[in-house]
């Protein structure tokens, strides 16, 4: 049997359903019904999404967004150990507490490298199409077992703790997902083509340096809009990179590609659209300013982008 990503969809669905139920029965949550509805719908889309009519899924996504957008998703009062108990636990466990935490990345890496080609009964053990995610899911389960064994807590307590963290992040959990949907819709509706059309029609590309600058800055700007460098690359490479940099100025395609993608990543560092990298960590780290991570990244991203323009200009004809 192959362990596939669908198994982990079910696991996440069950986790989200537990979050919904725990919120529904928690009187310390000021919006417990709408909160439970929000997480319950998300759970449903994980458990049964592929069997539902696509239009129904789309409608439920909009309901979720409205619940989140109008303040319907709140948290219950978190229950943690009191400081005294926690100090005792730290004294008892010492550095052993790092073992389960490090098991997670360790199992993930072993799964993605050593177990990659292992087969059971002629079938691959881990879904090759989603190898890293499936390995990471295994790592998360192994780490949870290790943590329960070490702390003598039950897996249910683990679910309660997961709920505390999900509650704290609130709607930021679904933002990357909804933005990914928007990104796909953008490409379906031809936003990429329109942007490429504008850049190539209205900007003069008659000097090599200007063309390089347009290409790199365009990559970054387009990524800022789409939130994803993978969406920007085909557009800018197709619009400027291949016809102008390679076609007119004889650039080395490998240099054009490598530095172009890195310019797109500079854009990723500067946009709230890349929510999983920029907005979710702000929520995870309890930062009051949701753009704090972006602010911390701009002083690195802009100089790297400028450096990229010069690197591409000087390296492309080597």
């Amino acid at each position, binding site marked *: 049997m192959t362990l596939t990503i669908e198994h982990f969809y079910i696991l996440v669905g069950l986790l989200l359903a537990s979050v919904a139920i725990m919120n529904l029965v928690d009187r310390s949550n000021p919006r417990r019904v709408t909160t439970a509805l929000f997480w319950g719908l998300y759970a449903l889309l994980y458990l049964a999404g592929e069997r539902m009519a696509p239009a129904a899924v789309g409608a439920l996504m909009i309901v979720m967004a409205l619940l989140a957008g109008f303040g319907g998703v709140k948290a219950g009062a978190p229950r943690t150990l009191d400081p005294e108990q926690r100090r005792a636990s*730290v004294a008892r466990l010492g550095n052993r507490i790092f073992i389960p935490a490090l098991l997670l990345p360790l199992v993930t890496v072993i799964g993605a490298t050593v177990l990659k080609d292992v087969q059971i009964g002629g079938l691959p053990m881990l879904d090759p199409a989603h190898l*890293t995610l499936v390995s990471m899911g295994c790592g998360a389960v192994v780490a949870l077992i290790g943590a329960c064994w070490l702390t003598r807590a039950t897996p249910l307590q683990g679910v309660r703790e997961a709920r505390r963290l999900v509650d704290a992040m609130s709607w930021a959990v679904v933002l990357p997902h909804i933005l990914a949907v928007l990104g796909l819709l953008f490409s379906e509706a031809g936003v990429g083509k329109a942007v490429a059309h504008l850049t190539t029609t209205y900007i003069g590309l008659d000097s090599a340096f200007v063309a390089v600058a347009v290409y790199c800055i365009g990559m970054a700007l387009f990524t800022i809009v789409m939130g994803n460098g993978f969406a920007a690359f085909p557009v800018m490479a197709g619009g400027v990179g291949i016809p102008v940099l390679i076609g007119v100025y004889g650039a080395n395609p490998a240099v054009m590609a490598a530095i172009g993608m890195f310019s797109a990543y500079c854009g*990723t560092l500067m946009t709230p659209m890349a929510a999983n990298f920029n907005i979710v*960590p702000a929520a995870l780290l309890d930062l009051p300013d949701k753009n704090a991570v972006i602010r911390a990244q701009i002083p690195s991203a802009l100089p790297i982008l400028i450096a990229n323009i010069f690197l591409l200009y000087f390296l492309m004809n080597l």
Partner: protein
Amino acid sequence: MQSAVNLWPLLGVVVVVAGFLLRANPVLVAVAACGVTGVAAAMPVMALLESLGTAFVKTRNLPLILLLPLAAIGLLERFGLREQAQSVIAKVRSATAGRLLIVYLFARESTAAMGLTSLGGHPTMVRPLVAPMAEAAAEAQHGSLPERVRHRIRAMSAATDNIGLFFGEDIFVAFGAIVLMHTILQAEGIEVNPLHIALWGIPTAITAFVIHAWNLRRLDAEIEREVSAAKGAA
């Protein structure tokens, strides 16, 4: 050049930019942009809902990386993972927030360059270990920190993870971005060795390390300034 490029879908982009500038709830902004883009592209309502639904089901893999580790990490936090990480780093006399993050930047970028991208990450490393350690290092050096400084150190910890990951992973040959670039160039009839794409990423990878490490050194000076200003005010 065909003149049939439809510029109307760009209205969706306008909605996104305006929404973020007005600081509206980002989930609402995203859904509003979906609606405007669909209307601008002349999609019937049912077709739009179907597109949204199909895309939503297809991208369910994205949140897994955030949601799966939460139970294990949350449980370990309950029993003092962050406190232990802090007490370990507080014993290292030469540790400062900036130096610690430079070490993490190096480790993150070099392991990502070897394809080990899952060794870091915000839920698994930054929240439970890196950010508390960076805070503890600054605390061991300066005593208690103003809230603003704490938030700044946490944001820089998250930024360091991102920068290390982005500029490391792309010089690993088997990484998805390299495959994507290779496929796109091939479709245009340009034959490139994927290894060359990876190798030509190295100058930027080194530049990114130097620039961000420089900013992390400045973070130490900034913490020093903010803490003494806070002490002077008290």
